[in-house]
């Protein structure tokens, strides 16, 4: 039955008795997991790419192409080789950074992605930062003052964060804060007037304009990023506060807290130094997860704000049936998502000896 170990698991245990060997072996296993997951992702995108109902050859050659031309094109594109060879060629191309050409922009997809990804990263980073600054203290307060009003506020926000459709909230935000109140700038990352005035050094318009000392550009960029960042931050706050609260509640119910209080430590010390100190690492992994969710959710928000990131690149490619761009973006977002997820897994296991 399940409680008994298989021969392989027993062998594993015997060989890795030494702690150093064990650590190396776990790292190798993690790397293997990463490689297999990436291969899975590549397989999925390859499969999707082959599954499209339109024959790419006919699309290129037109429907009146002669049989010879069709056959020649087939050989030229390597479509006559067995599927597994095509897959290996695909993997080799991807690993060399070749994601094909975009039908829409006529650029290599990888160049397009390099151009748009920083915008998404800037938005995700700012939103996660706000989420941490507001969400984590909120979660701690909600746990410490369990069942008081702030706990209810936190739970309400958590509920709202899992029930509000993000694209709708974004639209409502634009309607209220841009159209009616004029507190923020409209869609886009920056007004066309200021576009291109600042050199791209870090990829973040905010940082670049500060570094260049162009305060007008900075103010304009800020007024554009405020609304999307606030809305995405709301979801981060909801998620992070819920996780922090849950972690803290678990810690605060443990006996060492009672001991610490009995020993005369101030409440502040007990909460922040001891309880919070113990959840710091799981919290870091949760933060990385929250970041990856924001990256993934960008496909729904960027289109509303006309934010020129990978999300709107993907949705634009989707609407125009630009399969190379769609699959390339899927690969990049997927690879980032997978890496962050597996990294959090690994971090968790490294720092929590119980999980080994």
């Amino acid at each position, binding site marked *: *039955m*399940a*409680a*008994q*170990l*298989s021969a*392989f*698991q027993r062998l594993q245990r015997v060989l890795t008795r030494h702690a150093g060997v064990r650590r190396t072996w776990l790292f190798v296993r993690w790397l293997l*997991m990463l490689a*297999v*997951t990436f291969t*899975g*992702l590549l397989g*999925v*995108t390859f499969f*999707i*790419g082959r*599954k*499209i*109902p339109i024959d790419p050859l006919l699309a290129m050659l037109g429907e009146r192409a002669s049989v010879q031309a069709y056959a020649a094109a087939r050989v030229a594109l390597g479509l006559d080789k067995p599927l597994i060879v095509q897959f290996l060629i695909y993997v080799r191309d991807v690993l060399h950074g070749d994601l094909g050409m975009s039908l829409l922009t006529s650029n290599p997809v990888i160049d397009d992605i390099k151009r748009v990804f920083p915008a998404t990263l800037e938005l995700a980073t700012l939103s996660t930062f706000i989420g941490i600054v507001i969400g984590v203290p909120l979660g701690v307060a909600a746990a410490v003052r*369990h069942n008081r009003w702030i706990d209810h506020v936190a739970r309400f926000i958590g*509920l709202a964060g*899992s*029930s*509000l*459709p*993000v*694209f*709708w909230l974004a*639209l*409502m935000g*634009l*309607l209220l804060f841009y*159209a009616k109140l004029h507190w923020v700038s409209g869609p886009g990352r920056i007004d066309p007037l200021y576009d291109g005035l600042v050199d791209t050094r870090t990829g973040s318009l905010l940082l670049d304009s500060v570094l260049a000392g162009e305060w007008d550009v900075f103010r304009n960029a800020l007024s554009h990023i405020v609304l999307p960042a606030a809305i995405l931050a709301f979801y981060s706050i909801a998620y992070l506060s819920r996780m922090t609260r*849950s972690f803290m*509640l678990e810690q605060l119910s443990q006996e060492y807290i009672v001991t610490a209080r009995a020993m005369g430590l101030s409440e502040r010390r007990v909460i922040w130094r001891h309880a919070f100190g113990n959840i710091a690492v799981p919290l870091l992994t949760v933060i990385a997860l929250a970041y*990856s969710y924001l*990256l*993934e*959710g960008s*496909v*729904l928000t960027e*289109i*509303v704000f006309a934010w020129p990131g990978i999300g709107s690149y*993907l*949705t634009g490619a*989707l*609407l125009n*049936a630009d*399969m190379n761009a*769609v*699959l390339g*973006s*899927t690969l990049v*977002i*997927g690879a980032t*998502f*997978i890496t962050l*997820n*597996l990294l959090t897994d690994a971090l968790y296991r490294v720092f929590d000896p119980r999980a080994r």
Partner: protein
Amino acid sequence: MKQPRKEWHAWLLTDTPASRRQAALGLAYRRWRRFASNPLSVFGLATLMLLIVFAAIGPLLPLHDPLRQVLGDRLLPPGSPSHWFGTDQLGRDILARLVIGSRLTLSIAILVVVLVVPVGLLIGTTAGFCGGFVDTVLMRLTDIALAFPKIVLALAFAAALGPGVINAVIAISITAWPPYARLARAETLRLVQADFIHVARLQGASSMRILLRYIVPLCSSSVIVRATLDMAGIILTVAGLGFLGLGAQPPSPEWGFMVASGRGVLLDAWWVATIPGIAILLVSLAFNLLGDGLRDVFDPRQGG
């Protein structure tokens, strides 16, 4: 007539039930009392019941035709005499479209759950029960699927398979099953040590019988809670796909698509995009509240 009620009450809650039926009914009653003590959970349940009723009898109600365009009545605000929620830019009644759209939303969500839960259960219980190599392989597979980004992959699938309801269901299902496999496996590992499983084996029950008759039913409560909470997210994902034009196609009144089509007239006619969004919000909220309530009933250890 308080007497009969008190008698029922006592009969259901007795410590010494005389039959299995009495014990089962008593348990159900206790659970219901616990559930009903939380007004939010009851609100969630009531909202969902209302949704199901509207979805079921929607076409029979005396509403406007959701597909009929009356270009003379375009963009009427909510509160107009014959159009309570107003009309969209093609003159279609929004209330009617909401009600008919609820059928779409519900059916897609239910289809996904019906596909995903059995598959996840099967994989999880098999992994937990068999252990060893089978367990490792299945769990690695689950971990790999769990590490994929859901919305992005659903987008890519829908892009390849083409827009449409069935394709949207398939796309979402492909990435939605891993949590159930994990859950089922955890429950199975817990149960497989139990004495009654050993007894069943000694009595000669085959593995298949043990799995299906004992383990799967015992996993079901946590799976149901998880499925209800997941439904909220699935509704949002379906609406998101619809927003991008990948779900039900026009003129089908899918809620996400309605929000997208209201974008163009957002500044002049805010209600075209706002009202379907509120509907999505309410349904998702209802599932969340219901799921929280169920979790409190079935597994009070969690949450807090």
